[in-house]
C-alpha cells in the first residue's frame, strides 16, 4: 500500500515501530501532489521544503523519545485563509496575493506543536465567500470524483486534497457550511466543531459570529484526531463505542419536502437512517423550526459582519476583488443595525428551541448535507451567483457541532449526511459517525484514478 493511503492511526503505528519514516511519508504525499494536483487544483502553494524540514524534525524527535501525539509526522494541509509564518497566505484574493504573515495562526501553531507536517496551503473561495470564480489568479478546485464538477466551497481545496488522496487530513473553515458542503460533494468527512471550540486567531474572518475552524479528513477517526490536535475537544475518545440505545432525531421533512432535493439524496438519507438503526440507535422523525428562518437569520448576520470586515478594502482597493465576492460583500449595504439585532434575537431563540426541543430529548440529530450532488462547472458563469442548496447554515447560527459523512452516490458523485450534536459533544457525534462508518463502506470509496500515477 502507498503510505499516502494509510490512516493517521496506521501511519502513526508504522512511524513508531520504524516501518515508516516521517520523511518517507511526506515524500509519498508530495509525489501524490505532483502527480495529481494538475487535475484537481487543490493547492495554492505546496510547501515541499517546509514539509521535509517538519518531517526530519518529527523523525528526530521520535528517535529521541519526544512523541507529540497522534498527528506526529502526519502530513496536513491548511486552507489558504489561515496564517502561516513565512508562507504566503492569499485568502484566495488579489488583495492578499503577496501577503506573507509573520506569525502562525493559532491552529497552525497547534498543528506544528503536535508534530504535524505542513505540505501546503489549499484553495479557498475568495475570502471564504462565494464561487467558483473564473476571474482570479487561481484555478478553481475540481472534484476528484469528476473533474467537470465543482468541489463546493469555500474550503474547496481542502476537500479536493483529501478526496484526491493528496493528504489524509486538512483544515478548513465553516461560516455557512464551508467545511461540510465540500466534504459532502467530495465524499469525505468534515467536522465543524462547537462554536469557539477551535481558536480563530490568525484566520481571516468572514463573519466572526458564525466562523468555525475544523478538519476535513478521509475518515471519522482522522477528523477526530485532527480536531483533538487543534483543540481540547476529546473527539476521538469514544470512537469504538457501541451506539445501541442512542436516541437520534431524524429531521427528514427539513430536506425531503424541498423541491430542490434530489430523490437520490432522500433515498440515501433513508438508507443511512436504517443503517444507524441496525447499529442499535433509536431513530425518530421530528419536526423542526422553519429552515428558512435559520437561513434568514444567518444571512443577515453574515452579510452585515462581512461588510464591516471588508469596509476598508472595499473603499480603497475594490478593483482587487473578483466579481462574485465584490458583489456579494456589497449586498450587506442593505442591512441596517436594527435588522442585525433582530437577526441575532431570532438566532438566539432558534438555538434555544433546538437545545430544548431536540437535544432535550435526543442524543443527536441527522439530516441531509447538500440537497444535490456537486453541480457541473457549466452551471456557473462567474458573474451571477448560483444557489447550491444545502442544510448546513442552521448550525452556524446555533453553534452546535456537526459531523458530515458520505452516504452514497448519485451518477458517480457523492452524497452526504450531517450528524448534529449537543454543544460540546464532538465525541458523541464522532462515535455515531464511526459506528456508521464501520457498518457501511461509503468512507472507503475512492475516486477514479487519473491513469498516470500509482
Amino acid at each position: 500500500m502507498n503510505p499516502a493511503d494509510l490512516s493517521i492511526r496506521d501511519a502513526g503505528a508504522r512511524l513508531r515501530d520504524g516501518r515508516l519514516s516521517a520523511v518517507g511519508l511526506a515524500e509519498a504525499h508530495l509525489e501524490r501532489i505532483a502527480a495529481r494536483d494538475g487535475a484537481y487544483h487543490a493547492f495554492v502553494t505546496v510547501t515541499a521544503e517546509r514539509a521535509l524540514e517538519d518531517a526530519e524534525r518529527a523523525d528526530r524527535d521520535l528517535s529521541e523519545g519526544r512523541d507529540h501525539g497522534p498527528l506526529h509526522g502526519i502530513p496536513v494541509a491548511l486552507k489558504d485563509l489561515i496564517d502561516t509564518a513565512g508562507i504566503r497566505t492569499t485568502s484566495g484574493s488579489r488583495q492578499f496575493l503577496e501577503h506573507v504573515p509573520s506569525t502562525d495562526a493559532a491552529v497552525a501553531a497547534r498543528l506544528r506543536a503536535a508534530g504535524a507536517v505542513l505540505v501546503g496551503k489549499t484553495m479557498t473561495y475568495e475570502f471564504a465567500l462565494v464561487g467558483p470564480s473564473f476571474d482570479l489568479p487561481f484555478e478553481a478546485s475540481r472534484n476528484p470524483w469528476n473533474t467537470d464538477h465543482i468541489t463546493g466551497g469555500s474550503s474547496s481545496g481542502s476537500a479536493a486534497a483529501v478526496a484526491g488522496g493528496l493528504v489524509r487530513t486538512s483544515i478548513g473553515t465553516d461560516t455557512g457550511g464551508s467545511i461540510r458542503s465540500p466534504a459532502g460533494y467530495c465524499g469525505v468527512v468534515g467536522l465543524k466543531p462547537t462554536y469557539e471550540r477551535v481558536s480563530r486567531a490568525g484566520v481571516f474572518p468572514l463573519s466572526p459570529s458564525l466562523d468555525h475552524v475544523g478538519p476535513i479528513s478521509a475518515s471519522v477517526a482522522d477528523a477526530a484526531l485532527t480536531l483533538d490536535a487543534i483543540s481540547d475537544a476529546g473527539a476521538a475518545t469514544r470512537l469504538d463505542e457501541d451506539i445501541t440505545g442512542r436516541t437520534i432525531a431524524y429531521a427528514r421533512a427539513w430536506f425531503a419536502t424541498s423541491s430542490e432535493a434530489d430523490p437520490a439524496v432522500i433515498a440515501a438519507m433513508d438508507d443511512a437512517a436504517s443503517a444507524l438503526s441496525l447499529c442499535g440507535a433509536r431513530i425518530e422523525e421530528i419536526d423542526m423550526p422553519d429552515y428558512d428562518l435559520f437561513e434568514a437569520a444567518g444571512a443577515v448576520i453574515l452579510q452585515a459582519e462581512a461588510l464591516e470586515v471588508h469596509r476598508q478594502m472595499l473603499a480603497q482597493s475594490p478593483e482587487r476583488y473578483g466579481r462574485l465576492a465584490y458583489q456579494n460583500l456589497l449586498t450587506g449595504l442593505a442591512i441596517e443595525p436594527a435588522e442585525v439585532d433582530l437577526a441575532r434575537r431570532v438566532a438566539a431563540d432558534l438555538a434555544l428551541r433546538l437545545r430544548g426541543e431536540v437535544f432535550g430529548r435526543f442524543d443527536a440529530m441527522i439530516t441531509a448535507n447538500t440537497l444535490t450532488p456537486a453541480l457541473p462547472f457549466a452551471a456557473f458563469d462567474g458573474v451571477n451567483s448560483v444557489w447550491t442548496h444545502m442544510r448546513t447554515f442552521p448550525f452556524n447560527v446555533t453553534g452546535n457541532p456537526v459531523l458530515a459523512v458520505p452516504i452514497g452516490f448519485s451518477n458517480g458523485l457523492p452524497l452526504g449526511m450531517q450528524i448534529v450534536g449537543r454543544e460540546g459533544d464532538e465525541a458523541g457525534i464522532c462515535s455515531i459517525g464511526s459506528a456508521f462508518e464501520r457498518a457501511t463502506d461509503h468512507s472507503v470509496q475512492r475516486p477514479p484514478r487519473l491513469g498516470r500515477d500509482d
Partner: protein
Amino acid sequence: MDEQSLRSAVLAAAKARGIVIADGALPGVLKGAAWLKDCVAQLKQASTSK
C-alpha cells in the same frame, strides 16, 4: 421596500462608508440586497408572531 428605495438606500450606505460601487456591479448587488430584505421580512414576521 420597492426597487427604487432599495437602490437609494444601498447607494447612501455605500457613500457613508466611502465606497463607490463599480460600473456594472449594481444590478447584482441589488439582486442580493433584495433577497436579504426578504430575509429581514421573514425575521420580522417570526418576531411578531411569537
